[in-house]
């Protein structure tokens, strides 16, 4: 696609973000990346069967947003949900076990990759229906408002969701009632196989916020600090009654819509385009920035890599050693009793 950006490396002022927070963001992004790369292999090996929509390339978005919110804030996610789950603090062993369809999975083997939840961590579920969780996020914000809590809720969705009618209904209602909800559009330039320009008559998604009398901003979604700063401001405003904000994060998924393939062989996108974006790897850019600023040393970096690889392998061991759900429990959890 032709959405070109200035080749910003991370250069924005970070004086108000502590080194600890910056390092934590780096670890989160790397944790998502390593997890997803292993999942890609496991899907190729048919170890993992359920459809996995990989988050590789978009790590800065989930990380930047989830680093700006509290544990009691809600995050509603999509079919491409692993990154949001990890960034919001979901247990990655339970995530891998869910992908393996095990009883120890974060959804007890009932959800698979597209339906992840961790209520204690503020993850009340992800939906495979495009735009499906956007009104849920608005509803949670309505609840917080009635309950006079200062929590906020976040709706993650892709550019494809902007074509759904419920997107308009949800943003309108949220703005009408000044609800504490943040709309995070992860514009990865494709809606399944369709380039964004083939889907939307107006591809500047952030501008659509005007129609709802709501602030709309576009940020470099591969720059975790830019995302973090935009989210922090939006969340502060929402938390204190100024109403919702739409943030469009320009990013790119390195793999296809679903599964490990990069889709180049299918002619869905060009090698040049993919190369452009892999050169703008959100993790590598941030890593270089942290090292340049002296926030991360080479030895620390190696240690983090080692720890994350170990941790990721442990999730696989945990999943494979976990039991499958009891077939006798097929009909349990239909109703809460």
């Amino acid at each position: 696609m032709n959405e070109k950006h200035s080749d910003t490396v991370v250069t924005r002022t970070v004086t108000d973000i502590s080194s600890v927070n910056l390092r934590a963001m780096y670890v989160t992004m790397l944790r998502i990346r390593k997890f997803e790369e292993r999942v890609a292999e496991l899907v190729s090996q048919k170890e993992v069967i359920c459809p996995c929509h990989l988050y590789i390339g978009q790590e800065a978005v989930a990380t930047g947003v989830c680093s700006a919110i509290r544990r009691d804030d809600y995050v509603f996610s999509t079919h491409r949900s692993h990154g949001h789950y990890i960034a919001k603090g979901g247990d990655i062993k339970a995530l891998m076990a869910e992908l393996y369809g095990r009883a120890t999975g974060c959804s007890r083997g009932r959800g698979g990759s597209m339906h992840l939840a961790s209520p204690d961590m503020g993850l009340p579920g992800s939906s495979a229906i495009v735009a499906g969780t956007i009104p849920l996020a608005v509803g949670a914000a309505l609840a917080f408002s009635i309950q006079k809590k200062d929590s906020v809720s976040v709706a993650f969705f892709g550019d494809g969701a902007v074509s759904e009618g419920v997107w308009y209904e949800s943003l309108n209602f949220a703005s009408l009632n000044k609800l504490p909800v943040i709309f995070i559009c992860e514009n990865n330039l494709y809606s399944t196989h369709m380039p964004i320009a083939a889907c939307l008559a107006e591809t500047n998604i952030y501008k659509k916020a005007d129609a709802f009398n709501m602030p709309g901003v576009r940020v470099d979604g591969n720059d975790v600090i830019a995302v973090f700063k935009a989210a922090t401001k939006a969340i502060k405003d929402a938390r204190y009654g100024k109403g919702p904000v739409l943030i469009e994060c320009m990013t790119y998924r390195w793999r296809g819509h679903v599964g490990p393939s990069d889709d180049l062989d299918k002619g869905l996108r060009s090698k040049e385009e993919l190369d452009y974006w892999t050169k703008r790897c959100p993790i590598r850019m941030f890593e270089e920035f942290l090292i340049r600023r002296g926030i991360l040393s080479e030895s620390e970096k190696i240690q983090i890599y080692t720890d994350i690889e170990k941790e990721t392998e442990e999730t696989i061991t945990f999943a494979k050693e976990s039991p499958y759900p009891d077939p006798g429990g097929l009909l349990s959890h239909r109703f809460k009793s």
Partner: protein
Amino acid sequence: MPRKARIPIPVGSSVIDSNLEQAYKMRRISYVQAINETLHQMLESDTRVFVIGQGVTSPWYVGTTTVGLIDQFGIERMIDTPVSENGITGVAVGAALAGMRPVLVHPRMDFMYYAMDQIANHAANWHYMFGGQLSVPITIWGIINRGGEQAAQHSQALQAMFAHIPGLKVVMPSTPYDAKGLLVASIKDDNPVVYIDDRWLYEYEGEVPEELYSVPIGKGILKKEGKDVTVVATSYMVYEATEAAEILKKEGTDVEVIDLRSLKPLDENLIFNSVKKTGRLVIADGGWKTCGIAAEISARVAESNIFKRLKAPIMRVSLPDAPAPASSALEEVYYPKAQDIILAIKKIVKV
């Protein structure tokens, strides 16, 4: 909204519920007053409850069921909405996930097709899909507005569509007593409950306790005992069935009438025990015949060992497989009534 012109007989206080304790203060009030009173009392007694939907602050849109609520509870808990059925349904589901107990009203069921994604894909699946960790305690209240020459898109009775979906409960109270008791039960239930009423019922009166009480979801009620044939009826068709029973009594046929009250879970035992006794079954439902509630009940009886107790084929009295017409001349033959139930009974009972 024109009400129907035809006036069938109210059956009065033939409701006898063994759960009802004598200590309750009974009054005679209308169905619409029963709903209004329930909303007042539930909003008063549980701060998690709020009402949301199109027209909830209008004096007429939801048939006076919400009169006075805005004055007492304010716009924070009486939320009138734009016509965004799917979005607003999702908003209510999201609020339920965040600890609230929304009563979501769709003043015309026909518009619930817009909301099917949030009802069927989201509310219904949420408890199962996350292994029982989350639940959606929401009352989805849909109102049937048939008759009055309102034609195909302002008149539909969609109970069977909702009963088809795993994860939803479906109730259809026919009396003011059940309107209150089932609304309380729906709001208190931890799961999504589709609560369906019919404008034709709104002016019917009956004995209703002043206090809050629940009618159990999943339990039908025997309205009239009889030995010759069982008529299982839903919602407004309970009154038509009762009228049919009274007419046939004079001709010597003793009809047993069951008010199903809950379509899901279905009170199989009540139906089976009755059919075991009478050996004949007629099902009267205001939805379409094809794949409808009557078809489901017929199949359950046919699959069970009650089948061999049947002395005659099962009969269904329901809407034909056609959209609702506008002209009252066509409506007259479209909507089934007591006479259709009588004809069905006469086909299987030899007088």
